[in-house]
């Protein structure tokens, strides 16, 4: 006999304002098997939970239906409450009458009608529920960090600090990421290298940290506590163990005309290279797209001069496989491509640059050794014309855009206001003979010491901040750039002859994020930023268990915020790795061998590799024995996604807690 209790929550007025909760509770008593129903203001409160528990004991309930918010919110709460009262956790069903009902209906009549229907479906389902017991799975005590920028570095250092092994996979030849390209950091103006490179060295020296540079994640299988990851180590044609980073090979390499990506193409590098002096690992890499030896078979100079014998032209990409308990996505960002923004003449004039290019121009290790020159004079830096006098900064290039121009973003890139203030201030400090203009939509500087920083640029350094957007940048015959803009406050049209125009280019997630997101089955938003499990309360967790988010991969943020989030992600990872066993989800698939045809449809759709096939003997009705190929599910690997149950043509595959019969019963109850 079913003895089901139905508990209807008001959720304050969240539900009660559009659903007649008393009517829902009354209607519940008309359902066969329901022996008790009640409504209460906040069922999730201690008093509400006590009501549920007391009723379970008093009425000897066999099943509980809570009509409340989304099961994502409080299913765990009520399951726990039921267990404490002696009822199996999995005999509790939630009817979501808030997100799926009261919040989307305005009319009390229709809201109530729908709530009753949802309640009926949950009652029909709970009648077919069976008590379930979750299993335990062991945890691989090793973490993977995808991306070796400041986010990945900080996460790895913190995990290693707690005593766990951690691997960093970085697609570039060195870790360090975007921060290595930045000159100074706001709001304290300390040099980026000076604070970053010690951390990079820490990573290299920490025996708990293993860096796979020039490597990419190839595939991810498994689940929280037990991921298996294939990592592709791209051929760098150098034996990492032998290379001492002496640079002799680079010296001798005759192929000099390779655009240097570290300096954003402002100068050239060799075909064999170390991106920058502080690279970690400090190991050379041969660029196979340019190397004469690899392309034509002739040359081989680097191999002749290498004292360590580290050069290996026959090296191939290799795939290694490693097991992890948790994975952190720290895939970072890139400035968007602004070639489509014709009005700023970026592709027409070398003197129109992005802010990241300006960072390289101002960096002592950059193409101009830290002297600010117009890029058109980079090869002739001593020309008196090389020094820019009038510099125009354009904010929000491609950010906060309402137009659908390809590549432009609706969101605010968040870091540009601050770094532009930094650039303007540094230029005015070093070159007082310059005029610096900043065109902005709004100046957004919330954050500790941020607004003070911006005000210093305006008040102390005399940077001209003009509210308004630049309409056009036109290169003139004399090499100057005619900037046409509007000043919205004085309502004037401005024409400025500039020597240098700097575009605060929007940032977007790295292109690799999408495929990594797919491998991790981690959800992403329309801009390809990873989605957090809860925007406020679980900001560093992906909705996929065991996958965590660090840095700009999750949304635009500056260095202080990135480091904060990186440490938060590390804390979450440590929370998993410190456990010996994880409690699994008992709602897993299982196969009825008597019905299984052995067709492999389930095996093909299973994203976790949880299904295997084997030949088994079956006694036939005529007492003979037949051998049939049948599926079986590894409950420790199954994540209960249910893909197999829909793929199975015979209905042999079923999901505990969401059986075909239960879903059919729900549909029947709704259609009744």
């Amino acid at each position, binding site marked *: 006999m079913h003895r089901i209790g139905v508990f209807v929550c008001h959720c304050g007025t969240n539900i009660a304002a559009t659903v007649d909760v008393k009517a829902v509770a009354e209607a519940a008593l008309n359902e066969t098997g329901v022996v008790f129903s009640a409504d209460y203001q906040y069922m999730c409160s201690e008093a509400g939970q006590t009501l549920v528990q007391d009723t379970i004991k008093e009425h000897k309930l066999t099943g509980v239906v809570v009509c409340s918010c989304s099961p994502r919110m409080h299913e765990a709460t009520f399951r726990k409450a039921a267990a404490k009262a002696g009822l199996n956790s999995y005999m509790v069903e939630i009817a979501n009458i808030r997100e799926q009902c009261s919040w989307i209906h305005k009319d009390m009549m229709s809201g109530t009608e729908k709530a009753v229907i949802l309640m009926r479906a949950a009652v029909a389902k709970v009648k077919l529920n069976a008590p379930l017991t979750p299993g335990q799975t062991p945890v691989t005590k090793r973490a993977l960090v995808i991306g070796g920028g400041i986010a990945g570095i900080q996460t790895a250092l913190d995990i290693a600090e707690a005593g766990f092994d951690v691997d960093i996979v970085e697609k570039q030849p060195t870790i360090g990421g975007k921060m290595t390209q930045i000159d100074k950091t706001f709001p304290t103006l300390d040099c980026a290298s000076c604070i970053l490179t010690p951390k990079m060295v820490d990573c290299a020296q920490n025996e708990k940290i293993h860096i796979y540079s020039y490597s990419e994640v190839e595939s991810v299988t498994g689940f929280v506590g037990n991921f298996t990851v294939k990592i592709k180590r791209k051929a760098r044609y150098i034996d990492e163990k032998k290379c001492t980073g002496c640079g002799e090979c680079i010296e001798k390499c005759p192929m000099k005309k390779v655009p240097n990506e570290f300096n954003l193409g402002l100068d050239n590098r060799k075909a064999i290279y170390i991106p920058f002096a502080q690279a970690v690992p400090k190991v050379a890499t041969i660029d196979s797209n340019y190397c004469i030896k690899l392309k034509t078979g002739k040359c081989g100079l680097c191999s002749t001069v290498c004292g360590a014998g580290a050069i290996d032209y026959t090296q191939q990409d290799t795939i290694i496989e490693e097991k992890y308990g948790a994975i952190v996505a720290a895939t970072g960002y890139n400035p968007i491509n602004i070639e489509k923004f014709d009005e700023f003449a970026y592709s027409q004039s070398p003197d129109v640059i992005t802010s990241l290019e300006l960072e390289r121009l101002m960096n002592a290790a950059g193409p101009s050794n830290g002297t600010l020159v117009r890029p058109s004079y980079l090869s002739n830096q001593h020309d008196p014309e090389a020094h820019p006098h009038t510099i125009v900064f354009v904010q929000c290039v491609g950010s906060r855009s309402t137009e659908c121009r390809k590549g432009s973003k609706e969101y605010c890139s968040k870091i540009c206001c601050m770094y532009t203030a930094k650039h303007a201030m540094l230029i005015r400090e070093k070159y007082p003979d310059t005029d610096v203009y900043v065109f902005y939509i709004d100046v957004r500087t919330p954050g500790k010491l941020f607004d003070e920083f911006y005000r210093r640029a305006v008040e102390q350094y005399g940077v001209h901040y003009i509210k308004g957007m630049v309409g056009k940048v036109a290169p003139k015959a004399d090499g100057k750039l005619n900037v046409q803009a509007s000043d919205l406050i004085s309502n004037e049209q401005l024409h400025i002859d500039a020597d240098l125009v700097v575009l605060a280019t929007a940032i977007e997630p790295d292109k690799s994020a999408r495929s990594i997101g797919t491998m991790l089955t981690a959800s992403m938003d329309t801009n390809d930023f990873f989605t957090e499990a809860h925007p406020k309360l679980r900001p560093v967790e992906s909705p996929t268990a065991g996958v965590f988010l660090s840095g700009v991969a999750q949304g635009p943020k500056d260095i202080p915020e990135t480091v904060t989030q990186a440490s938060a992600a590390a804390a979450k990872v440590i929370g998993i790795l410190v456990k010996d066993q994880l409690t699994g989800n008992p709602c897993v698939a299982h196969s009825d061998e008597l019905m299984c*045809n052995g067709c492999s449809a389930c095996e*093909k*759709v299973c994203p976790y590799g949880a299904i295997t*096939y084997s030949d088994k003997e079956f006694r036939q009705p005529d007492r003979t024995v037949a051998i049939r190929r049948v599926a079986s599910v590894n409950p420790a690997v199954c994540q209960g996604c249910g893909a197999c149950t829909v793929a199975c*043509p015979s209905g042999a595959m079923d999901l505990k807690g969401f059986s075909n019969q239960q879903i059919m019963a729900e549909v029947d109850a709704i259609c009744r």
Partner: protein
Amino acid sequence: MQEVIDTAKRLLSDGTVNRVAGWKAGEFPYDVTPAVFTTVEEIDNGFIYNDFCAPNLSKYLIKESHKEGKILVFLKPCDTYSFNQLLKEHRILRENVYIVGVPCTGKVDIGTVRAMGIKGITDMESDGENVTIHTLYGDKVVPKTETLGDKCRTCKSKKHVIYDELIGEDGEVNNDGARFELVEKLEKMTPDERFEFWRGELSKCIRCNACRNVCPACSCENCVFDNPGSGIQQRAATDSFEENMFHLIRSFHVAGRCTDCGECTRVCPQNIPLHLINRKYIKDINVFYGEYQAGEDVMSRAPLNAYTFTDCEPGIVYERGGNE
């Protein structure tokens, strides 16, 4: 066709196989029945291969290939697709089957003949060009092309996709899309017209289960309609609408696996054009997920069992439905 019979006898006598799956005459000469022969004498006495040998023998191999020894099977081009599909689903033990591909120029369909208004049929014979129909009211001679069912009229392939030995020349795959003409006609109907059409057709169903029993894709160990545990076993008996749903559920169960062999329509005693439901799904799969022919090969992933970046979004599917 003597060559077929000779091949059967040769392979049986030389020990390549210990059984032969083929066809024998049924109650009427035009009503040919699948049969297994174990001796040369049996073949001499009963084996036939002619323009009435429509039955697809692939499905019988699920059971037969698991028996002792190797079995010879004769497969027409379209039957090889069913064989491949079953092989892909691990239902047939390939090593226990010797396949001889037989040529086919289309099989006479008794339903089509009856639809011509020819009654009182006592016997039929075909010389490959013309079919002579003996009736109580005299003989009629009809060109064979006019006696073909929809399946053979719009034949999808004259090519054997799998065989060990071939009799005659192999043909070509036919991609002219003619087999979707009737589906397109149905798609052009309004939803109400289409609903009426299918209600009319499906209400003729007497639930004899012939379509299910003959279908190579309907080869579950335990059919959901027979299984009390499925929760839907008795549903078709609730009312006429649920009864009609039997065919829709069945077609969904074979979607993506149906090779369009047309056996369902051929065996239907009520002449319901059941294959049109399957062809609609095949057409949709082609449109939404790219051209796919179930049974064409053993290795490829079926579109409904594979998720790729190029899969169309569900919205596109809904949108098209909404525009009609």
